[in-house]
Structure formats: C-alpha cells, structure tokens
C-alpha cells in the first residue's frame, strides 16, 4: 500500500492505494470520477485518456502510485462555470457521439491534439492525431468535423487572449 497525493481537476486528493492500482481505477473507484471509461484495457482504444501533467495519456496503462504528486485533468474538469469546453460543445453541435462510450477519451485526446499541433489542423491531421482512440460505432466522420470546428474556436480564443494581454 502507498499513500499518494494527486491533484485532480484542481482539487488535491490524498488516498491510500495498492501499488498495483491503475490510475483509471483510482479515478473511477477511489474518487468516483466515472467519466473516464475503461474500454479495451489493453492500451489500444483510448477511452481512458486523461491529461497527466498536461499530456494526454492512457490511464489504464499508468500506475496510480507513479502519478503521486502529479496534476490530472479528466472529462469532469473541462466545463467552466456551467459552460461546456469548446470541444465538448462542438461534439454536441456536430452530433459527434453515438453511444458515447469513447467520447470522454476522444475529447481529452482531441484537446491535447489541438493544443499541441503545429500550424493549422486539417482533416488528415485530425484522423492521424486521433489514431489512439477507437469509436466502436465508427462515428468518425462527425468526430472529425467537431474537432476541426473546436480547433478553430480554441485558436480564436487563444488569439483574443493574446490580444487582450497586449
């Protein structure tokens, strides 16, 4: 057993965990944050994608104890003041979810992709960038549309913040 302290969605959590506990199980079972899903459990499908110290990672392949001292963001931490994150909003507007199981992982991956992409994202870039996320409903068409629309909005927001800061 180990005592770990992890910041999740801006809130510090201290818990006793078994050393073998996976980060995804820590989030779901110890903290009750069940928005992060376990799909394949073999590092393939990406449903468990979260941000660990700002990077999209598959939380089914990380030991919770190794994330001691880290900052985690999950799908539950995206909305601000009752307003959805632009990526969530565009998934809704573009009907980018069918059963919805892959959606949290898709959204966490897509935000990482947009934040880290050099230059403007195009359809190919989005499809390639999301290769670590599988949609069992094969609903990729609208997912790609949503990500492209959200990327535009996120870039605009970044520009306007930069302009305000002079």
């Amino acid at each position, binding site marked *: 057993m*180990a005592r770990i302290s992890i910041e999740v969605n801006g809130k510090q959590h201290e818990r006793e965990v078994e050393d*073998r506990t*996976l980060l995804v199980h820590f989030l779901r079972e110890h903290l009750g944050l069940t928005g992060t899903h376990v799909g394949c459990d073999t590092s393939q499908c990406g449903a468990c994608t979260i941000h660990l110290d700002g990077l999209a990672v598959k939380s089914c392949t*990380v030991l919770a104890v190794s994330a001691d001292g880290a900052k985690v963001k999950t799908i539950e931490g995206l909305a601000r003041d009752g307003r959805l994150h632009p990526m969530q909003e565009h998934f809704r507007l573009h009907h980018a979810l069918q059963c919805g199981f892959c959606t949290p992982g898709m959204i966490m991956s897509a935000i990482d992709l947009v934040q880290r992409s050099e230059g403007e994202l195009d359809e190919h870039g989005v499809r390639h960038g999301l*290769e670590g996320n599988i949609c069992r409903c094969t609903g990729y068409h609208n997912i790609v549309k949503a990500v492209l629309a959200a990327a535009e909005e996120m870039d605009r927001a970044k520009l306007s913040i930069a302009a305000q800061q002079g």
Partner: protein
Amino acid sequence: MYQTTYHRPATLAEARSLASEMSEAVYMSGGHTLIPAMKSRLAAPEHVIDLRRIPEMHGISVAPHNVYIGAATPHATVAASREVRGAIPVLAGLAGSIGDRQVRHVGTIGGSVANNDPAADYPSAVLALGATVHTDRREMAADDFFTGLYETAREPDEILTGFSFPIPQVAAYAKLRNAASRYAIAGVFLARLTDGTVRVAVTGAGNDGVFRPAVIEAALSADFSPEALDGIEIDPAGLMSDIHATAEYRAHLVVVLAKRAMQNPGAAVVLR
C-alpha cells in the same frame, strides 16, 4: 495484476541497490510494455523500480558528430526535438511513428531498446546507425547489444542510461504497420555513415529480432541508389511466419521497404 511493490529511486545508485536487495525486481521506464504484461499476468514482478525520476536518464544533446538521447526520454519528446530533427531527422520521424499520440507521451527509448521486442522500431535505428548504448557501468556497441528475441547483453541489474547516435550522411526508415496492433510487420532502417559505411537493420521480420541483412548492405555499399536493390532477394529462412505474414512475404517486403527508404532520404515512411 498480481500484487507488486513500487519504488521510485532518485539516483542510479539507489536504483541499483534496490535491484540488488530485492528478488523478482524489474526496472520500469514508461511501462507501456511492462504494465500491459503485468495486467495480463504474463509478468508478475514483486518489485517495480521506476527509473524516470533519475536525472541522468533524461536530456537530449547534439555534438558535432553525434546525438545523445537519455534513456527515459519519451517518444513524443524525441519526435518534437528541434535538435534531433536537425541532426538526424529520420530518428525524430521514427519516434513519431511509434504507437499513437498517448503512447508516445509515456513510452521511452530506453524501455523500447531494453525490451528488444522483435517488432519495435528503435532497435533498428540503434543497430543501423551503429549507436553506442550507455549504461550505469559501461558502453556497448549496438552490434554487441542485441542478442536475440527480447534478449540483450544487459545484465539483470544493469540500467541503460542513454544512447549516442552518430550523425550519418544520410539515413531513412520505412515500415509496414499492422493495421490493428500498429507494430511493424517489417521495418527497414538504412544509413550511410560519415566514413561511407552503409549499415542496414531490419525489424519486425527476423526470428531472432533485429538483424543486419548482408545482401542489402553489400548491394548498397557497391551502389548507394534505389536501383541497386533491383533483383535483390532475401532468404526467407530465419524470418518470422505468423498470422500476419509468411516468411516469404516478409522476405519480399524487406527489399520493397529498403527501396522505399532509399527513395525517401531523411524520412520515416509509414505504409499501412
């Protein structure tokens, strides 16, 4: 996953002494091979020693004749490194072709090379470029390091700390990925070093893991052009046959990939 005890040493000395004190201990870097193996109970180490907090395991530096990459450097860091892109662009390209974005954020070069998976990408770069493998106690030539399927010359408690890659005149990589697993069905890394030596390494295809195909090296040493590979054949004996491809298919594929690599100097070409 069976019970295990996790350790996070801050120095190489601490890591080594943990490994020597504990029975059934393994080193972990990104853990993207080890954790899946532990989850499926193919591996059940009593102790896991995480090497990522050790400062000596990190860092990328470029000298006039070589690029040094710390063993705990994630694939995404190598792929995005201006230094690596400038000095050995194909190495950055290869790193950016491993797994997927999330995997590349965590998986490391040291883990990949130490594990020596027969379909991993990095061993082919290490072998073809004739890199030097640095450990906590010695330096090894790539030719002496890879000894077989998942086997290397690393001692059980020895820690890979980094890799020194000679900057070649030109190098390139081409692989055909399995659509489901994303591992290479075959991959060919070729390089012409500054002294004119041509070295080629094949991953994904050999029964004993990564290897240097003598006939391709001889053909490209005589004439470093894509046409030099016309009519070249690889002996399927010693190549893998599995549900994805026969040994004969892989033998043919290796020559095709070598040609693709020759046609795209500096690039990591991914066929799917």
